[in-house]
């Protein structure tokens, strides 16, 4: 019989390999898969490189069905609309398999973008490959790159999904303000609970 410590160690290694650990972009990294074309709700095929702004680029992995996304969506629309006219490229990427969540289908995305007044692209990550390359695990999850294309903020929209009126820390808004001003965000990494991304199996 194998030594219990060895069994435990092997089990831990197996679990670590089987999850997303270590794959997420680190602060200082450049956007991967930046040339991948993704279909936007207006029919255009866009890549992260094409939407990049002169002052920075915001990529948010999101979707339609997730209740945490729904809770934050008004704030995402507000920030995206406000900063995409200030020189920050904004793109919201849906990596979910619509076979698992029909609410995440392309027509439903078109409706949602219209209803929420998105003035920035809301695109389909058709293989979930862009989310995999970023090491994204959940929706919503924000990645903000500076003018040089370097990741300077990764994480949550703010610290209270449930109640916008009770937000104490506006993580993403503060990071956007810093990047727009050409400085580094004071807080580079945050976490929040969200929906697991339903990756396509291929």
């Amino acid at each position, binding site marked *: 019989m194998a030594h219990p410590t060895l069994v*435990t160690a092997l*089990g831990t290694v197996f679990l670590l390999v089987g999850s997303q650990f270590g794959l997420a972009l680190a602060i200082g990294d450049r956007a991967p898969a930046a040339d991948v074309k993704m279909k936007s709700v207006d029919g255009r095929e866009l890549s992260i490189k094409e939407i990049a702004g002169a002052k920075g680029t915001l990529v948010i992995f999101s979707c339609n069905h997730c209740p945490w996304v729904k*809770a934050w969506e008004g704030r995402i629309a507000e920030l995206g609309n406000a900063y995409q006219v200030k020189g920050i490229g904004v793109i919201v990427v849906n990596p979910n398999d619509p076979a*698992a*969540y029909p609410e995440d289908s392309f027509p439903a995305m078109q409706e949602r973008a219209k209803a929420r007044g998105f003035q920035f692209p809301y695109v389909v990550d058709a293989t979930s490959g862009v989310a995999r390359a970023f090491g994204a695990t*959940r929706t919503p999850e924000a990645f903000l790159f500076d003018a040089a294309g370097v990741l300077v903020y990764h994480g949550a929209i703010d610290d209270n999904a449930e109640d916008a009126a009770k937000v104490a820390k506006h993580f993403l808004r503060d990071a956007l303000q810093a990047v727009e001003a050409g400085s580094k965000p004071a807080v580079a990494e945050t*976490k929040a*609970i969200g*929906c*697991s991304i339903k990756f396509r199996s291929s």
Partner: protein
Amino acid sequence: MTDWTPRRRNVLRAASWATAGLVVLAAIACGRRTPASSPATLTPATGADVLHEVERSRGSVVLVNVWATWCTPCREELPDLLRLQREHGANGFRLILVSADFASQRPAAAALLASLGVTFPTFVKAEGDQGFIDGLDTRWSGALPASLLFDREGRKVAFWEGKASYEELLGKVKPLLGGG
């Protein structure tokens, strides 16, 4: 398979209020005593509180599972977690369920647990996400479900995000239980 249609949500809400009413009636009838067959309680807890509960369970193999009513894979995984508790509770396995639901969803969480026949105490997140996530495990990104596994000595031996099948769960837990 969307998360919650408005109709399902209404049904669930109605069920939640009915359950909450029953809980109140049961509490009145039984004073402060909690009978073994009462519906699951959802005690507000921080990440540190949950780890303290793990510490108190030293001697058992403990699986902490963070779930939410809104999370489809979490709901799919719950019956398998409960089967593990049913089949291996007597061998020293303890399941600690922690709901990450919004405060407004707590009645729905209680109703869901009741519908699954949960009668043991459970917990509900009662602090900001960041502190709760890192308090439980700094490797956790925040995606649900999330699970932490502790051996009988209270050492954390595994952490994973995402749903596991019954066979996967058993494969992780059984070696720690020992004794065949």
